[in-house]
């Protein structure tokens, strides 16, 4: 068959007939070694560039700010606030139907106010990401997303854990 052998490993034999250097059955000819080095340099350069890019764009990569970080931003700026919904802090005003709760990063607590429907998974003791802006002491949210943690367990086990 014309495509056997020569098709598969055309350049494994060096034109000058040099024997490839061998380490436990895996051998490289000098040209192959040169390609290895080139690849290594290109890879290193790409890694360096990638690292620089990632470091430079750190702030943009963050999907939300914590309550502590929120205070570093000016009021009125539209951004996303993320943290844990404090237990016992969720109330809904019966007249205006405005939802009020506290978001905490376990350092400080931020009051959030929201008009609208929340996702099913929004509840006390679970994570939340609120999009909106801070006005004075209150963060006025225009959108609420529920953030859940990485724990998965059956309801019976969770009940046992809660005691």
């Amino acid at each position, binding site marked *: 068959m014309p495509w056997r052998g020569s*098709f598969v490993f055309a350049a494994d034999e060096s034109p000058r007939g040099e024997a490839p250097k061998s380490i436990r059955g895996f051998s490289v000819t000098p040209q192959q070694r040169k*390609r290895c080095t080139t690849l290594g340099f290109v890879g290193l350069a790409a890694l360096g560039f990638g690292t620089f890019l990632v470091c430079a764009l750190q702030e943009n990569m963050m999907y939300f700010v914590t309550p502590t970080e929120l205070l570093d931003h000016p009021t009125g700026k539209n951004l996303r606030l993320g943290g844990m919904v404090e237990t016992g802090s969720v109330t809904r005003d019966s007249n205006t139907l405005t939802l009020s709760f506290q978001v905490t990063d376990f350092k400080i607590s931020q009051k959030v106010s929201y008009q609208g429907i929340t996702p099913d*998974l929004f509840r006390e003791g679970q994570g939340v990401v609120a999009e909106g802006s801070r006005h004075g002491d209150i963060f006025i949210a225009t959108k609420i997303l529920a953030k*859940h943690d990485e724990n*998965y367990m059956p309801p019976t086990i969770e009940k046992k854990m809660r005691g």
Partner: protein
Amino acid sequence: MSLIQQLLKPAELMDRLNRWIPRLTMLSLILLATGLWFAIFASPPDYLQGETVRIMYIHVPASWGALVTYFGMAVVSVYAFVKQAPMAHLLTKAMAPIGALLCLISLLTGAIWGKPTWGTWWVWDARLTSMFVLFLLYLGYLLTVYQLKPETQALKSAAFIAIIGSLNLPIIKWSVTWWNTLHQPASIMRLDKPAIHLDMLIPLGIMTIALIALCLMLFCLNLKLLINQQRLRSTLMRISHGTN
């Protein structure tokens, strides 16, 4: 000849593929049936998410698969570039559509999972964005090898998409650790013990192995197809040169 060269000798490779395809098909069917039965019926709902959690049994194996396949493509492409081995390029080309499909499944099942849990189909947080970039990389690779002519040059160029693009893989993995994301951190692939209960971890494991078997079978099928296409092309070339 080294072990790799032995494995990639075309005639023997075809024999090996022909033997493994029916075995892998049977294996995948059995594992998928078992896994899906566990996933849908014989596993508990989640204390928080309820029945919605069952999408995990497809989303997680598909996501892992997309990452592992791209890594495989990168490793084989390095070998192909250093050794100048056309057959290795063909292996990479055979893996690509499967990885792309797994990535697409991950994105779509993730969106379907996100809507009832997070409250949105999509956000541009670090995890979701980097998975989307992975999908674009797959598309870039596929477009290069299927559209650019001549094919030998296309395969060589596409190999760099596989190699350089693999830098996205650690970004995907650690995106939930390095940055604030909506997507939760890792439940299993971490130094701590798994954050997922055994009653859910076992079905997840079965579905993962099932998907591996299925993808290996598809890979063998695709590789067979590509090798046959090469044979056909070189035969046609010989014939056309013969008549000139």
